[in-house]
């Protein structure tokens, strides 16, 4: 069991409000991802759940029990830190076993659980090594091993992959996803990388300046962003946001169209534009262009498109995929 509820949680450091009244339900077994630009309060929110920071007001409820004033060691949660935070003076075995020792478990039970966790994470050959003798990916695995061995109510991940190189990041992302499938334990994951958020989450919580901007499944956020902030944050490359006559014509202050939701022609279309740069990824081509009276546009074309800088193209958005926003930046249904 591992449901987490936040009830109007606020956090201020001195006079600075970092979290402004967040209410949130994470149900048992869910993979929730907190995402947002740096400084949006996502790590602070995770630390409030962990108990590493005290809330200024509001309630943190874990498994229907009010844990607001309970210390981190008593909350039954496990955390994986960005810096791994392994105990440098202990072997891999010592690191993984530490929580079990603290819980006063018997030596043979500890050894058995450590072996099981090490086997799950391909660490069996490294049990007697010190953290400094491991690579970044292995250290990350030890940090995860330290978390899973305790069978916690929920896992908290604080940007766990941001110190790894790109290839390893993709691999670990898959491993964490598989771990969630295998354990079915609640996971709360903080990242600034919206690709990680989209690929891993059941539920994404987009945070903006200490408040929840939107909560939903990855596809809900992709298909129906509730405002300009989420529209601009979710999706890569980012959504084209267009003001002016084109928006007014469609009864909105701003319209949004994702790069993959426009048609391009070299002969005719709604928005004439000049190609600035074409990025060839093989599977796709990203076209950066400047449209007259609209500004920069990004297009994502399937496959290879041979376009040259300076060439004129015509862009037509697909009406079914248009997002409309009012003057305040709120989605028009």
């Amino acid at each position: 069991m591992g449901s987490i509820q936040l009830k109007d949680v606020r956090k201020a450091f001195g006079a600075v409000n970092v979290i402004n009244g967040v209410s949130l339900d994470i149900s048992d077994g869910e993979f929730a991802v907190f995402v947002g630009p740096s400084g949006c309060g996502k790590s602070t929110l995770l630390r409030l759940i962990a108990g590493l920071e005290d809330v200024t007001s509001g309630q943190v409820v874990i498994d229907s029990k009010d844990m607001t004033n309970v210390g981190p060691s008593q909350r039954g949660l496990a955390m994986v830190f960005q810096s791994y935070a392994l105990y440098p003076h202990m072997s891999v075995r010592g690191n993984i076993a530490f929580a079990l020792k603290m819980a006063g478990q018997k030596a043979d039970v500890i050894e058995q659980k450590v072996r099981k966790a090490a086997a799950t994470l391909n660490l069996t050959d490294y049990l007697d090594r010190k953290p400094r003798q491991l690579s970044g990916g292995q250290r990350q695995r030890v940090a995860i091993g330290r978390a899973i061995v305790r069978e916690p109510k929920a896992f908290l991940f604080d940007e766990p992959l941001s110190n790894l190189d790109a290839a390893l990041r993709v691999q670990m992302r898959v491993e964490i996803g598989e771990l969630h499938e295998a354990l079915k334990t609640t996971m709360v994951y903080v990242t600034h990388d919206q690709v990680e958020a989209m690929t891993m989450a059941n539920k994404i919580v987009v945070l903006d300046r200490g408040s929840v901007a939107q909560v939903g499944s990855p596809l809900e956020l992709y298909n129906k962003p509730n405002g300009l902030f989420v529209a601009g944050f979710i999706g890569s490359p980012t959504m084209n946001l267009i003001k002016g006559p084109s928006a007014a014509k469609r009864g909105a202050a701003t319209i949004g169209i994702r790069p993959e939701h426009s048609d391009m022609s070299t002969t005719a279309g709604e928005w004439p534009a000049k190609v600035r740069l074409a990025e060839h990824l093989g599977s796709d081509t990203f076209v950066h262009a400047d449209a007259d009276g609209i500004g920069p546009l990004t297009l994502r074309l399937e496959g290879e498109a041979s376009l040259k800088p300076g060439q004129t193209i015509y862009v037509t958005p697909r009406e079914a995929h248009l997002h409309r926003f009012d003057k305040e930046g709120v989605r028009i249904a």
Partner: protein
Amino acid sequence: MAMKKSVGQRAGVTILAWVVAFVIFFPILWTFLTSFKSELDAIAMPPKFLFFHWTLENYLEVQARSNYLRFASNSIILSIGANIVGLIIAVPAAWSMAFAPSKWTKDLLMWMLSTKMMPAVGVLVPIYLLARDLHLLDNLIGIGLVLLLINLPLLIWMLYTYFKEIPVDILEAARMDGASLLNEIVYVLTPMAVPGIASTMLLAIILSWNEAFWTLNLTTSQAAPLTQFIASFSAPEGFFWAKLSAASTLAIAPILILGWFSQKQLVRGLTFGAVK
């Protein structure tokens, strides 16, 4: 950073370093040599450097006149005992200042340091009267307490700078792993800080060992450490340089050996925090 220096420059710097080191070391060397001279050779003019009649008679006489081992054991008990108790107080204090600072932490640290700025003689009379009324004159506990209080600010300051360098994430990880505050300090913080704690202890032991003002004023015989042993040879009859030197050599030998073997830690301790 890599500045190329010519061979001449490097040789110059090396020679200068040796000269400075020799000048600093010279009094100890001279004391050591004098301890093997006869009293007459010791005051000879011009001074005799190496060519004199080497003798052990000073050592024999010093040992005959007073019990070196009792002074030495008092020194060991005081310098190690006072600082172990100091460490037990200083580790939690430094923990709280480094990892759970309040808005007064900086002021508290400065205040502790400020106690080191006052000349010791300024509080001699009150401390002496207190020790007398509490029956702590010439008492190991009494002088130990004073040594503890003298070194406590230094212990806390040095440990504080060490602890500041330990990533707080690791302590938080221990908390998430279910460690109580005590377990966090015992199993995670302290082992990680062992080099820092060792060099802090070493420095504090050396300072306690050499502390003369309070040991000379608050002890006479029962609790007297080696400083008192040396002082007893600059006695009313006048100075006997050779015997005084033999006593001094005996008094500093243990700490010199300890310092020699642990100089690596000590250098790290003394320069800690100076360069990040």
